[in-house]
């Protein structure tokens, strides 16, 4: 017998040599029904032709695994596609059924509504035609309601569908009975007419509502789909000198990967050669492209803009930053907000209570209602069953949480769970860690003050600017030092592109500073240049350098600003024509981040008290606090005491957020009501943090709190709507207003209200998307 052959290509994991190819090809070819199998080592893929009737994915998988490899036949993308197709099919089905029901319902209504029916063709006024139209609606379009209700009843569970089934079956059953046996009901009702319009239009409207609800709900999980879609599919790996494109699943740690302009960076790694500007906005939310060069880390799924570079993979698969972000967002969306507890409790009793209320409605209307009592009783019972909307309550919180955490992720704000998102809106105090959080964490040159320009500027000077020349001298001297302050000075000189001079006889004087010989104006000394010293006040005293009162004041002022001041002077040298003089001052400090002042001001505007916590001395801490506008300072706090300080403030009755790097201050982050960690490198899964800012932007602290406030407002509005709707409209449907105002709810309007109710909750959650961070 001839089979139609199917050709399929899939990825194989674990291949490393040419012999693997043979083993795999043999093993795949042995599967009954496989006519050919070709395995490509370079691409890591197998292409198999087979008879689909005989060969399943499972057989191929086990053939591959039997020889020690792993076949990835269905990857995530395919799974996503299948899910999408299924959803589309469901939507199409819902649309068709609701349109059919509404048309049938409309025709029945035309042929039965008093005043309107006279305009309809006679055939539409026939009850049997109504029955003919209503039956497919009830059992074909409405099949899904029965399909959901019957198995649920076996579990003794009632849901939304149960209510629809009871309501519409009552209306349909009564109508069918009237159609066949009108004379039997004559004694009870004045005019026995069927209500097929009720059953059909209810089904039509509820299906239509589900259609829109399903469409809207897809929007709530868009963020995660976007993140998954960011993943690159292939990588250009350099192996034994050749560049080959391989599927991303096969990239291994330490692989060298080449990325060209405009391409997506496949996995996380470190640049080995080349440089480029990289757009990381899709992953970190950082909007400005970042310049990167050798030694810098790159993040998978970001876009290389300008240059070509080669980098070494350091994180692959589930370890990459993108994979971690996806996992974190998925987890947050799977968690439950405490505010949902009440809704959960109510929804577990809701449907049975509505059924009991509906029965009571029937009994009361039958016993005490106006004539025809049976008709009133039945229609009101149906209205009660149909108006009740448990879905809105169930959707109120999770949809808002999904949208809220999704928006956060898009802007580099990763929220660990729904509870963190909920707590963040109550925060009234924020403690910022100083070093590395509020400040850059690396000292920088802040002031360069030449005090003796005539000595600094020699005929050999590189520039005529005493500031530049002073920096050049200091940097030349510090080039040989390993001190962290020296690094800052050399970096500053490099930034200004200053050519450093050679220093001879360099010497570091521990606790004091450095000295060395350098070319300067005046007499050359043995070995060349003049001997200069750079260091603190102690060094100057030791070397007999005199400071006048004006210089003293300048130094003190700088120190009060939290800066470390270094002094450059010539060293008194025997026979030197130049007396020992102070040449200039250079101040170095850990500077606050550019975004800090604005970020703090924003938070204070929101009425949040800000505190600064640091292990540094009070003067430095005060200086930073003053600059950034912070009033409360917790200085000289050892790392292990930070947690205690957080608890102290909590005892004042405050809801405290702690912002830190998540490494040194993990216990403090964990102790705070909300721990906020600034992202470091490619590691986003910071255990102690409730919120991780991968965009490393201090302004995002306020953004995260605002997002929490917005999300909570949406949830509260949703819950208020969902509860209020049921609390008000169920009694109306029961007819409580009838004795006073003769108001009753037509079951058709009940179904319209019900369908709108759950859509409005989802739509309100989607409105959150319009919130600009």
């Amino acid at each position, binding site marked *: 017998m001839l089979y139609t052959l199917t050709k399929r290509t899939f990825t194989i994991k674990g291949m490393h040599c040419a012999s693997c190819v043979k083993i795999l090809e043999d093993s795949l070819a042995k599967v009954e029904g496989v006519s050919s199998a070709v395995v490509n080592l370079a691409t890591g893929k197998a292409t198999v032709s087979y008879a689909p009737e005989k060969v399943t994915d499972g057989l191929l998988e086990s053939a591959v695994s039997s020889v020690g490899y792993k076949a990835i036949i269905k990857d995530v993308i395919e799974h996503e596609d299948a899910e999408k197709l*299924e959803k589309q099919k469901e939507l199409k089905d819902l649309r068709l059924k609701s349109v059919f029901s509404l048309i049938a319902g409309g025709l029945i209504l035309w042929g039965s509504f008093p005043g309107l029916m006279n305009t309809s063709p006679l055939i539409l006024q026939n009850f049997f035609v109504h029955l003919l139209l209503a039956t497919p609606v009830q059992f074909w379009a409405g099949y899904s309601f029965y399909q959901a209700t019957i198995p649920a009843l076996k579990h003794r*569970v009632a849901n939304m569908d149960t209510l629809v089934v009871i309501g519409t079956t009552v209306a349909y059953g009564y109508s069918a009975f009237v159609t066949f046996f009108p004379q039997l009901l004559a004694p009870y009702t004045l005019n026995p007419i069927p209500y097929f319009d009720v059953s059909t239009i209810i089904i039509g409207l509820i299906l239509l509502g589900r259609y829109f609800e399903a469409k809207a709900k897809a929007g709530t999980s868009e963020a995660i789909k976007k993140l998954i879609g960011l993943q690159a599919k292939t990588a250009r790996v350099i192996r034994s000198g050749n560049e080959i494109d391989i599927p991303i699943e096969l990239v291994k740690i330490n692989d060298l990967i080449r990325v060209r302009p405009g391409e997506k960076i496949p996995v996380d790694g470190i640049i080995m050669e080349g440089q480029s500007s990289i757009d990381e906005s899709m992953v970190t939310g950082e909007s400005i492209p970042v310049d990167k060069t050798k030694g810098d880390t790159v993040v998978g799924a970001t876009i290389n803009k300008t240059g070509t570079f080669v980098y070494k993979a350091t994180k692959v698969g589930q370890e990459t930053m993108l994979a971690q972000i996806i996992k974190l967002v998925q987890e947050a969306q*799977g968690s439950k907000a405490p505010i949902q507890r009440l809704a959960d409790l109510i929804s577990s009793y809701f449907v049975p209570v509505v059924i009991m209320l509906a029965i009571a409605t029937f009994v009361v209307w039958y016993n005490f209602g106006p004539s025809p009592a049976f008709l009133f009783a039945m229609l009101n019972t149906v209205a009660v069953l149909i108006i009740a909307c448990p879905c809105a309550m169930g959707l109120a919180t999770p949809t808002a949480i999904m949208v809220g955490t999704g928006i956060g992720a898009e802007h580099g704000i990763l929220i660990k769970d729904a509870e963190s998102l909920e707590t963040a809106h109550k925060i009234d105090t924020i403690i910022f860690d100083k070093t590395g959080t509020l400040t850059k964490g690396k000292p920088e040159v802040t002031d360069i003050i030449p005090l003796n320009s005539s000595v600094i500027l020699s005929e050999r000077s590189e520039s005529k600017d005493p500031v530049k020349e002073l920096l050049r001298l200091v940097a030349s001297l510090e080039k040989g030092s390993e001190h962290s302050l020296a690094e800052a000075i050399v970096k500053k000189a490099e930034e200004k592109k200053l050519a450093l001079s050679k220093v001879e006889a360099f010497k570091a004087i521990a606790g004091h500073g450095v000295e060395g010989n350098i070319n300067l104006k005046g007499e050359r000394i043995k070995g060349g240049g003049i001997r200069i010293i750079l260091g603190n006040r102690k060094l100057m005293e030791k070397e007999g350098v005199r400071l006048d009162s004006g210089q003293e004041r300048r130094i003190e002022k700088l120190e009060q600003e939290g800066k470390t001041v270094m002094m450059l002077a010539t060293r008194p040298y025997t026979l030197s024509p130049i007396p020992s003089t102070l040449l200039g001052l250079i101040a170095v400090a850990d500077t606050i981040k550019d975004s800090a002042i604005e970020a703090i001001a924003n938070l204070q505007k929101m009425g949040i008290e800000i505190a600064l916590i640091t292990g540094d001395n009070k003067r430095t801490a005060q200086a930073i606090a003053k600059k950034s506008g912070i009033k409360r300072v917790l200085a000289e706090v050892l790392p292990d005491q930070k947690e205690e300080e957080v608890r102290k403030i909590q005892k004042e009755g405050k809801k405290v957020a702690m912002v830190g790097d998540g490494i040194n201050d993990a216990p403090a982050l964990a102790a705070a009501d909300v721990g906020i960690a600034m992202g470091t490198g490619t590691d986003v899964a910071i255990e102690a943090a409730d919120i991780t800012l991968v965009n490393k932007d201090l302004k995002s602290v306020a953004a995260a709190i605002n997002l929490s406030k917005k999300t909570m407002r949406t949830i509260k509005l949703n819950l208020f709507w969902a509860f209020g709707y049921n609390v008000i409209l169920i009694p109306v449907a029961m007819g409580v207003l009838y004795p006073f105002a003769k108001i009753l709810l037509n079951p058709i309007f009940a179904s319209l209200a019900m369908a709108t109710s759950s859509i409005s909750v989802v739509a309100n959650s989607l409105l959150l998307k319009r919130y600009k961070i």
Partner: protein
Amino acid sequence: MTADKLIVTIFGLTAIIFTYWFFLMKKEEEAVAASDSIDISVKGGYSPEVISLKKGKTTKLNFIRKDPSSCLEEVVLPDFKIRKTLPLNQKLTIEITPKRTGEFDFACGMNMFHGKIVVRD
């Protein structure tokens, strides 16, 4: 009160009591112990509804959704921070490793259908 009204009243009261008993006085099912993995059929609810797991042991929960109703299309295990869409008529495996003992509810996306995971030592 006429006979028909009396009948409707008695019938109605009985129906209310029956509804209460049927839905709200349901006895919890016996927990089904899972070893390495357990299949959970999703049709009008979860069967088995109550699953007992061992603390610290990784167990595969294989959800097989046979119910086309959109109510059951998602399963949420809030304590394990898991929310998954269940493809119709396919197996979806969720691996969990419970770290503490206790009872942990799971439910559909709209919290209408419930199941429970009981973690024992």
